[in-house]
């Protein structure tokens, strides 16, 4: 059974149609890249997958591990194992990173019928994961994303992913705003989280993060549809020629 199956998905925001029939199948262990020009619907796709209610799904289906994802609230989706690394991670003033993540971690465990972990145990888990994705311990003590640099925010997202251990991770333009060194660290963290059970969908405008992630499958999204699917060579082609030739092909 595939992990994620998107069938003919159409979605709009404020009455404007953005996704116009997306089809996508993701299997466990795969890394997919979804590339596309600005306004093609990349971020809409990730927001719809995560359940952002600002977007309206007008038709189509999303099946995750055999379940109808569209009937689930965002927190249920998260508990089922969907994680989204935000393009713009949100600051939550006054709420400690550790406390926030422990609350989330235990909410997910509770949903799955597992016992909640106490603070001592959680800190152990957290330190281990922080090391894995090379996150500075100091960030654990600060408030959620408050005053973090762009790179720190993105690293914090990958760290949260490591702790929450999702089945499907959606990286929404995780590379945007990162310099080369930060990009390498962040991508390095993601690579360490690759395994045969987990799938990763990396949404990006640029090819450069794919040099580190080496996706199995690359899709090009243009004007709300996937117009081309191929291997990593497709990403290089985009890097050389831009998106214009593909959009013409789609029309």
């Amino acid at each position, binding site marked *: 059974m595939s992990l994620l199956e998107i069938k003919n998905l159409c979605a709009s925001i404020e009455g404007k149609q953005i996704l116009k029939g997306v089809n996508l199948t993701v299997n466990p262990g795969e890394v997919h890249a979804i590339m596309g020009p600005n306004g093609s619907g990349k971020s809409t796709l990730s927001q719809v997958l*995560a*359940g*952002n*209610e*600002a977007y309206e799904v007008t038709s189509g289906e999303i099946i995750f591990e055999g379940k109808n994802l569209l009937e689930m*609230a*965002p*927190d249920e*989706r*998260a*508990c089922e194992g969907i*994680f*989204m690394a*935000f393009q713009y*991670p*949100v*600051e*939550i*003033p*006054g*709420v400690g990173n550790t406390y*926030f*993540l422990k*609350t*989330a*971690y235990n*909410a*997910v465990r509770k*949903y799955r019928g597992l016992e909640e972990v106490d603070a001592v145990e959680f800190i152990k888990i957290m330190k281990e994961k922080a090391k894995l994705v090379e996150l500075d311990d100091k960030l654990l003590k600060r*408030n959620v994303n408050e005053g973090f640099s762009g790179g720190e925010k993105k690293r914090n997202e990958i760290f*949260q992913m490591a702790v*929450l251990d999702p089945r499907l991770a959606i990286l929404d333009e995780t590379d945007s705003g990162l310099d080369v060194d930060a990009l390498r660290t962040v991508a390095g963290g993601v690579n360490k989280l690759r395994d045969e059970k987990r799938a990763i969908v990396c949404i990006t405008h640029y090819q450069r993060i794919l040099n580190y992630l080496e996706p199995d499958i690359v899709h090009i999204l243009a004007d709300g549809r996937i117009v081309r699917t191929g291997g990593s060579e497709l990403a290089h082609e985009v890097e050389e020629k831009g998106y214009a030739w593909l959009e013409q092909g789609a029309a």
Partner: protein
Amino acid sequence: MPSSDETIQSALQDYKYGWVTEIEQEYAPKGLNEDIVRMISAKKNEPEFMLEWRLRAYRHWLKMNAPQWPYFEYGPIDYQNQYYYAAPKSDKPKPKSLDEVDPEILATYEKLGIPLKEQEVLAGVAVDAVFDSVSVGTTYKAKLAELGIIFCSFSEAVENHPELVQKYLGTVVPYTDNFFATLNSAVFSDGSFVYIPKGVRCPMELSTYFRINAADTGQFERTLIVADEGAYVSYLEGCTAPKRSGNQLHAAVVELVALKDATIKYSTVQNWYPGDKDGNGGIYNFVTKRGKCLENAKISWTQVETGSAITWKYPSCILQGDNSVGEFYSVAVTNNHQKADTGTKMVHIGKNTSSTIVSKGISAGVGQNVYRGLVQINKKAGNARNYTQCDSMLMGDKCGAHTFPYIDVRNNSAHVEHEATTSKIGEDQIFYCQQRGLSEEDAVNLIVNGFCKEVFRELPMEFAVEAQKLLSISLEGSVG
């Protein structure tokens, strides 16, 4: 998915403390006149000076008009159509120990989560519980007495320590102060009295729990706390009331006196019945709280105001002595039709005095939340400092937040800072939390608690936990 407004209107957790205790009550006749004042005083075996003080207040009150300046309107209060004295009826003149207190009343406090009897045995917080007009029992009295600390009901203090009461009563809030404080001075029923002797650090939190039980009854407590030179005390106050369709008046007065080098920390968690979701019923919480600091003294007010139909109060500090410090930390929540007009006054008189104001207002439903604060630096208050931070959070689009800061500086060496922010609880913040697995309610609680953190961390540990719970109950279903 309903719009957030619909959700605000439809979903609200019921007030948990709305039950009534069935006990026989003894009332004074309805209405107010000199005879009632005399009767209250006689019921309490008060000395002559006390009765005279009450009568002076009453006669002064007759010449006063109810203030009209708050931001909101409230219906006229018929002062002749309520009881000014209600007490649990008892054959015995006065309970000497907790064993003699009516078991029904003790059961009431147990329901509220303060089993007095257990508290007497277990280490923890010393509690004075006031039921309608009468104090029903003070725990830990003996232990505190060893240190020379007096912690008792106001009536007992008048009886057993009249010299202290006479010396300090009305020295911070004179009986002429304002309409409600003057009314309180005439008819106040009971309350708590604390005296910490020179150099003594009170080893435990002192606490009063107020409950209005009888219908059509005003509750007029009077609390007086005196920390003698170099003393320290931390005092907590909690309040609840049954659900009634009419409005009930609660006009309390709290006076704090911090002598040289003394520190008083006063924390309130106010959860009076707020009325139903259409704005019927609820407590009018019109309270005067003020403290006076002598040299090097410090008074710190912390309040979490989640209840009452209308809250109208300004816990203030008169920084009279040099180097004295005043603090005010406040969280005020208004949901449905609740209104709060609250803030503080920091009056700098001595040199090198400093004050800090941190106010967090949260509005939901059609609630209105007002911060009103005065920072006054007098001519001789050299090098005075004030820092004020006022943050407002809005939930939904029918509530309001208003800020009226008054700054009056008459000395050029003063440093006064004022920061204010207003934000809407972010859909993006809620979504972010939900994406990590938190339910919407948990997400709102987390965000609101983060917003209030600077205030909550000023509360004693066990109160901080209670305050967080109260906040989540008050706001349940506010964002949809």
